[in-house]
């Protein structure tokens, strides 16, 4: 059974790795203009434009360009940027750690804070519960770009305790790296925290009403153990599902947040590459985004198995 599950996951992953880049390629090609137009503007002669199109390989049929790209991709070669000539893999290696720092940081904050608030509020009814409900609506309603601007105004401009923009490599300074991520992580995590808190609270309340919880309490099990060891674990699968969905959703949010905080990650690079029609870079980023989604799904599957032995026996 386990083999079948793994095989199914592999098939889905490979399919995604074929379909997503192909769709990206077609969408990019259907967008008016190309890299030569971006480089030359309206002023170039037709001959100059034709020469550059030929030089960049943009005069080839779409299917030829795609198959060429796919052939290289299957050999681990993502091609070179049309503008800098640098290998796309080199750019991705630089952008990925930035995006992962942001995404993983935001997810950790989402999980820790969201679950803690949700679990705590599940034990209380009335005011706190309503507050969580209100905050969850607020979290969904507040756009991350607006929150980002407010955070910058307060913590970077007014109090000057955190940087307004930029990213510091951890190897340069671990502390400054952390500080450079605080505001982006908060901006990105805010909606997730409230969503996870509400999900946790609702699931926990459901579990806390079950018979086995009453039995545990009747047998004198410590309340903290009842809540965090038994109830939370039983309530966690839907929460993990939500976290997985939030992580994938944060990929889109990171594009906005990276631009506002000037973080040189995959999102910023995607915007720049899309603007200039640098299709090898766009393709490379779409591959990495797809790989991230696949990895998250695998992690969620593993989490399911760890949290629920029944899943492992499927």
């Amino acid at each position, binding site marked *: 059974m386990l083999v079948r599950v793994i095989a199914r996951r592999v098939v889905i992953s490979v399919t995604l790795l074929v379909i997503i880049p192909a769709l990206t390629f077609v969408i990019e090609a259907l967008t*008016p203009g190309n890299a030569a137009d971006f*480089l030359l503007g309206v002023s170039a002669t037709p001959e*100059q434009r034709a020469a550059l199109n030929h030089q960049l390989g943009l005069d080839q049929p779409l299917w030829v360009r795609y198959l060429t790209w796919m052939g290289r991709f299957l050999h681990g070669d993502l091609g070179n940027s049309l503008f800098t000539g640098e290998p796309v893999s080199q750019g991705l290696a630089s952008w990925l750690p930035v995006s992962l720092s942001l995404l993983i940081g935001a997810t950790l904050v989402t999980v820790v804070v969201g679950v803690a608030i949700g679990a705590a509020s599940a034990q209380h009814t009335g005011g706190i519960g309503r507050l969580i409900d209100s905050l969850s609506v607020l979290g969904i309603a507040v756009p991350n770009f607006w929150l980002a601007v407010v955070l910058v105004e307060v913590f970077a401009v007014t109090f000057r305790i955190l940087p307004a923009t930029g990213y510091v490599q951890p190897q340069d300074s671990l502390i400054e790296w952390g500080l450079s991520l605080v505001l982006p992580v908060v901006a990105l995590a805010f909606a997730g925290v409230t969503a996870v808190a509400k999900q946790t609270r609702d699931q926990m309340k459901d579990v806390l009403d079950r018979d086995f919880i009453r039995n545990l309490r009747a047998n004198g099990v410590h309340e903290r153990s009842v809540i965090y060891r038994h109830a939370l674990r039983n309530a966690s699968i839907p929460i993990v599902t939500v976290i997985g969905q939030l992580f994938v959703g944060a990929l889109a949010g990171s594009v906005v947040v990276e631009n506002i905080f000037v973080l040189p990650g995959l999102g910023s690079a995607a915007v720049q590459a899309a603007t200039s029609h640098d299709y090898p870079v766009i393709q490379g980023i779409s591959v990495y985004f797809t790989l991230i989604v696949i990895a998250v799904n695998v992690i969620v599957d593993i989490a399911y198995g760890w949290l629920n032995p029944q899943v492992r026996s499927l």
Partner: protein
Amino acid sequence: MCFRSLARLSTLSALAAVVVLTLSACGGSTAPSSGKAVPGDTLTIASSTPPISLNPALNGNGVPLMWFAALAYEPLIVRNPDNTTSPGLATSWKYSDGNKTFTLELRPGVKFSDGSDLTAEAVVKFIQYYQKSGTFAFNLASLASVTATGPLEVTFHLSSPDPLYPYYLDEEGAVGNIPSEAATENPAEMATATFGAGPYMLDTAATVPNSSYVYTANPTFFDRAHVHWKKIIIKIIADDNAALAALRSGQIQAALGDATDADAAKAAGLNVTSEVGGMTGVVIADRDGKIVPALKDLRVRQALNYAIDRVGLTRAVYRSYGSPTMQYKPAGTDGYVAAMDSAYPYNVTKAKQLLAEAGYPNGFTIQLIVQPGVPGGTLLAQAMSQEWEQIGVHAPLTAPATFSDYVAKVLGGGYGVTTYVYDYQPFIWELNELFSPTGVYNFLGAKTPALDALRAQINSSDLGSPAANALEQQAMTYAVQNALSVPVSAANFIVFSAKNIGGVAFTPSFPIPDPTQWYLTA
């Protein structure tokens, strides 16, 4: 010309924000650069866009794009803020043969940052490469040949008179940003590193493409007194709010500004340097009526001009950082004609009357395409469309999100009018690009023989002379009275800078903020 870079600039800015221009109705306010210059360590400035390419032949022009080349490539001819010239890699230059031969004498003893020598052969090879592959190769259309006529002498032979070579070869014209001979022979290398003879050189190890470009002082630069910083960093900040926040928090020291943020910048204690920089409006490319026959009629084009409330529109779009205009050059520059400032007072009744006389009492429809990068471009286009609606001219908008999309749509035909922004520069240059048979904005090939004749005379003249100015004024009068386009506002360039940064200055004659001129004040 700068329109392209600005367009790209906010192509990216369309995804974020940008721009720069605003008006000087209130007479641009240029902040004084007070304080004595002292050696600076690091100057960090923001650019809304990364370079299109680090290759000086492919990076376009205009701010901020030209900064990436200007730091590392000393031009053959340096243009000063007051539009005078100074020696760069060339120490002297002259025209002969009725503006058909242009000769440069190069500075001896100059080394490029890769250690090689400046030679006439290096200049010739780059000019030839530029003529074949450069972004503005069309400017060299008259160049029949360029030869090394001595170890340090270069001669340009032109097929027709062209007085603009001192402009093509300056830092804004981009053709004169000469790299080493070895780099020209291997252009791919120029996409990721710099090979100029300028005051700074790119630190490729510290640079993160599309994020942060680090330039360090070039130890071989011939004019060390002109190097004010050990390091200049250009950070790519596409969002103008983010750039302002970075300025206010002290992360950066200067950035291009926006009229909508100017008050906030002043309130935050920043210097706001502002000077009239360019014209915004609508180009009527379909003057021959190929797409919309009505546009061939002078009365119709004049009606489009009369129907625009330039004062109100300028105030709405550019606030106090712009002024209404009906012509192509600001006061105080060559070609300006004071009388043209009252050519088309706002008069809807007159506009309707002209349309009726032309046989279009019920108006007509024109497709207006919005060029990305025009400051306040979409708002400007929306306002103009509404104004024209009053006289029955329906002008639905197309607003491409990116510059490449815009280029594709314009080249694809179907659009006879487009919004645009044009940095002020010699009027003949503007005339060439707007109205010559091969002009970049004349993308439908409209013919104006009378103006072509005037352009030919100006091209053979001594630019800057009274005689040339008189010809340019004739051309201005012709272009305005024949309503070849709809100029609306003279918009300002704005730079926000920290209080301790001096040297931030530019003029309507050469509205190009140049960070190599900026210094730390005591």
